[in-house]
């Protein structure tokens, strides 16, 4: 009898005996993510499930990420095959209004300049000794777009070219820096521009685009992506599918489901499963710290690229372009555009840059997905995927 009681007690003590330093650190990291999501409102929709997944997989003797465990099942069901990021992309497309971009298409070029961080980070990561595939995965943080980062990094993880734990680190870094855009960008915008440039008043955009043009636009972008960068067609195709449903106005139920129920369910499962990959033995490594450092570098260079193109435009247009608009050429939508509006009004109360910045910002969304698509196709050409 006593032996049975002791054996039972031993079973209860197994969890606490198995708790090690690494698990405690990861639980503390989950706590920090909970704090950021709940108290600081840092991307709570994704950071909170990621933190909970991290907590669940790091509790002693946790089997949730083992074969048959609930987190592993979610991972295999929707991340291993890229389904969840793509479902989120349908939602993003159905939430995006491309009217300001179509009214002023040249703003799309800011969406290209805003991807400079991807390629600069790639070079830096390679110089720091990252293997090629890991360097590409880290560089995609410069797309400033969480689902793109998860899609690309998981593609490499599926091919066994990068560690699965790295997908978690990359996702957390990408979403954290996206949320920190209002803190990261303004000092760079002020550093690179003069007060005169920041005060440039832009004429109001007409904002008038026909419904037919809005309907044709997602089809044109899908076809162009399919021809130029077929490896990235799943990414762009899903964004444009969501937008096509929105602008036609004939499938409002599907559109609402895409931007609400489907995107929410995919976000919850994706967050939990990504958090589940953050196990101590793989996550607590020097590479994780480097990933966070390189991610910050990527977002900084994105902003520099956009603002410098804005300055060039300012010079070529005889002072008619406000270079701050270049900072909106990233994928953080609509946060980056609102930031440009706030910053522009700080220097000229009469200035309303929002519509122009929205155009650059939606250009940044297309640019980030296009850059990832082109990069994947180039990698295929080089025989790396």
């Amino acid at each position, binding site marked *: 009898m006593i032996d049975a009681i002791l054996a039972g007690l031993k079973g209860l003590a197994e969890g606490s005996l198995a708790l090690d330093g690494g698990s405690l650190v990861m639980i503390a990291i989950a706590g920090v993510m909970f704090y950021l999501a709940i108290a600081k409102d840092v991307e709570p929709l994704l950071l909170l499930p990621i933190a909970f997944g991290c907590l669940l997989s790091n509790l002693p003797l946790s089997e949730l990420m083992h074969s048959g465990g609930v987190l592993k099942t979610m991972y295999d069901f929707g991340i291993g095959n890229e389904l969840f990021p793509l479902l989120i992309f349908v939602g993003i497309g159905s939430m995006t209004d491309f009217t300001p971009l179509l009214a002023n298409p040249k703003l*799309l*070029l800011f969406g290209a300049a805003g991807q400079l961080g991807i390629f600069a980070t790639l*070079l830096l990561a390679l*110089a720091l000794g990252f293997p090629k595939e890991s360097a590409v995965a880290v560089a995609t943080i410069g797309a400033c777009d969480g689902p793109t980062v998860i899609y690309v990094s998981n593609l490499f993880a599926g091919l066994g070219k990068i560690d699965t734990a790295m997908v978690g680190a990359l996702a957390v870094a990408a979403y954290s820096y996206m949320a920190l855009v209002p803190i990261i960008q303004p000092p760079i915008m002020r550093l690179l521009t003069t007060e005169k440039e920041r005060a440039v008043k832009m004429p109001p955009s007409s904002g*008038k*685009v*026909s419904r037919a043009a809005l309907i044709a636009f997602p089809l*044109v972008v899908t076809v162009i992506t399919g021809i130029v960068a077929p490896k990235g067609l799943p990414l762009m195709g899903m964004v444009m599918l969501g937008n096509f449903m929105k602008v036609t106005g004939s499938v409002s139920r599907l559109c609402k489901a895409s931007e609400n129920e489907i995107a929410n369910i995919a976000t919850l499962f994706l967050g939990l499963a990504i958090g589940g990959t953050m196990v101590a033995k793989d996550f607590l490594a020097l590479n994780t710290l480097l990933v966070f450092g390189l991610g910050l570098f990527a977002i900084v260079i994105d902003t520099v690229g956009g603002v410098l193109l804005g300055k060039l435009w300012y010079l070529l247009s005889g002072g008619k372009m406000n270079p701050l608009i270049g900072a909106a050429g990233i994928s953080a939508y609509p946060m980056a555009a609102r930031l440009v509006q706030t910053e522009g009004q700080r220097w000229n109360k009469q200035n309303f840059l929002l519509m122009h910045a929205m155009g650059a910002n939606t250009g940044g969304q*297309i640019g980030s997905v296009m*850059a990832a698509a082109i990069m994947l196709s180039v990698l295929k050409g080089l025989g790396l995927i």
Partner: protein
Amino acid sequence: MSNLTFGLTLLLVGMGGTLLTLWLLTLLIRGLTALLPPPKPGPDTKNP
């Protein structure tokens, strides 16, 4: 392929390809909006 060659290839083809494709898209958007312009506002019916 060395890391330097790989990085520079992606920088040139990747960034260059992104710029070129988006520039091509701006031309296509211009074509689209010219081909499918917004309807002109009708005559003001409030005034006789």
